[in-house]
């Protein structure tokens, strides 16, 4: 039993991903990525567009196969973890099914697990409670606001109580106020369910506010440049956003990103000059 506690939630060993290998369109998306995530940890992946952070998330989800390296989730291969539905997933678009009510959307992963109707319905009600949408179960997705739809997507991702939640810029399409509210809600939900989270984002404050660690990635080919630990304690509130530690961490992430960004801009500038 004590061994189980030592199993990492996610372990990425020397993972590389090359798309269209050997053709003119070859893209080296990821290069030799190593990352270990402990159970209950909240880890953000941040970096410039096209740095492969979404690719890394999809490798962990086993929606893509690595060209090289190994990935394990919950001590299993990522493929087995996917078959066992050991993780839930949420994207920038809520991706809800228009023809299903909110409750039926949340029940979808449970249907695929073969749960019976009663069990599904009671779990859906429980998830609606969790995301504070008790009164919206019988509505259709288009009747909800963007923030509410995203909460339904989170409820659906967590419906089977997976130990791991993979999120790809889930709040990217929301306005700033809704976004901050959703960040608070996500932290509350993850604390209540002790879920491990891997969170892809463009936003430095969002990464810092949410995470235990922020993984800063370089432009293509994506590598991990730096992993910055955020020491803001486990209880975070709106006050956290005004704390010294919050700004210090933001500066640290920004500097790590800017180092790479400056190089990136310089290299494209040179390339531009060559083109002329």
């Amino acid at each position: 039993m004590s061994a189980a506690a030592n199993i990492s939630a996610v372990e990425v060993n020397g993972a590389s991903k090359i798309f269209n290998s050997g053709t003119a369109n070859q893209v080296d998306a990821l290069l030799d990525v190593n990352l270990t995530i402990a159970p209950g940890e909240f880890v953000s992946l941040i970096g410039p567009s096209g740095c492969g952070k979404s690719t890394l998330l999809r490798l962990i989800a086993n929606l893509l196969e690595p060209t090289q390296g190994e990935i394990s989730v919950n001590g299993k291969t990522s493929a087995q973890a996917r078959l066992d539905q050991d993780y839930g997933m949420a994207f920038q678009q809520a991706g809800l099914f228009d023809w299903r009510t909110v409750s039926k959307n949340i029940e979808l992963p449970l249907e695929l697990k073969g749960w019976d109707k009663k069990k599904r319905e009671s779990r859906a009600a429980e998830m609606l409670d969790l995301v504070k949408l008790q009164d919206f179960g019988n509505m259709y997705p288009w009747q909800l606001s963007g923030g509410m739809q995203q909460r339904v997507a989170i409820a659906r991702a967590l419906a089977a109580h997976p130990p791991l939640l993979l999120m790809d810029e889930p709040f990217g399409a929301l306005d700033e106020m809704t976004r901050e509210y959703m960040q608070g809600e996500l932290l509350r939900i993850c604390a209540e369910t002790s879920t491990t989270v891997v969170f892809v984002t463009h936003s430095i404050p969002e990464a810092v506010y949410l995470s235990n660690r922020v993984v800063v990635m370089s432009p293509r080919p994506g590598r991990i440049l730096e992993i910055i630990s955020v020491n803001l304690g486990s209880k975070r509130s709106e006050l956290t956003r005004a704390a010294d530690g919050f700004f210090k961490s933001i500066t640290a992430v920004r500097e790590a990103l800017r180092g790479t960004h400056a190089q990136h801009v310089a290299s494209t500038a040179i390339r531009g000059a060559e083109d002329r």
Partner: protein
Amino acid sequence: MKTLDRIKSITTPFVFGVAFIALWEGAVKGFDLKPYFLAAPSKIIEQFFNNTARIWEATAVSGGNALVGLIVGTILGIAMSFILSRFRFLSQLVTPLAISLNAIPIFVLVAVLNNMYSITSEIPRRFMVTLVVYFVVLVNVARGLTQVSSIQVELMRSYAASEFAILRKVRVPNAVPYLFTALKVAAPASVITAFVSEYFGGLQNGLGSRITSNIANSKNAAAWAYVLGACLLGLAFYTVSIILENLTRRGQSK
């Protein structure tokens, strides 16, 4: 305010329609137009009510042909779209063909078909309707089955869902509105095809052939009465397709 808008949206076309018919009637009377040139609406209505039994009979024949073709074509179209969505290479083969066939008036083929079957057969007409409906349904439903949100497919794969589960829970529900869009086009098209097919010979029992034979006999008002029957039949098909769509739409927005 809203109810006022609704009343307006109904009364405006109604007033326009009544005014148009009044103008028509007035023109025929005022300029003393001969019946073989243009029949007066009052005469057409009179003919319509004098011949309801015969018009109904002809409507049943044309409508029956349209309905049989519509049902068979829809079933075949749906079946084929499933096969196409399963086998990508077949789809690349058939879809451009289906789309181009949709754009040309293939019902003229009925003349050829008439030659292939006995003169008393309804099969050429039904076959023609089937063909027209088939391609409309095929193109639309295949689109609905394949143009699904990539996020929803990725989500299903993250649930380790089988291809069959993705078909059942994502592709088929996604294709339902596409099917009804197809039916809204195919239902009036099936009626039109059924009439026009009758212009190319064969049995003289449907609305289309009655219209031509009445015109040939200079019974213009009677021909118009059959045209009126044809309009009503087309409307009935279209209305049913819309009612069906609303029944299945439930709470959806689109």
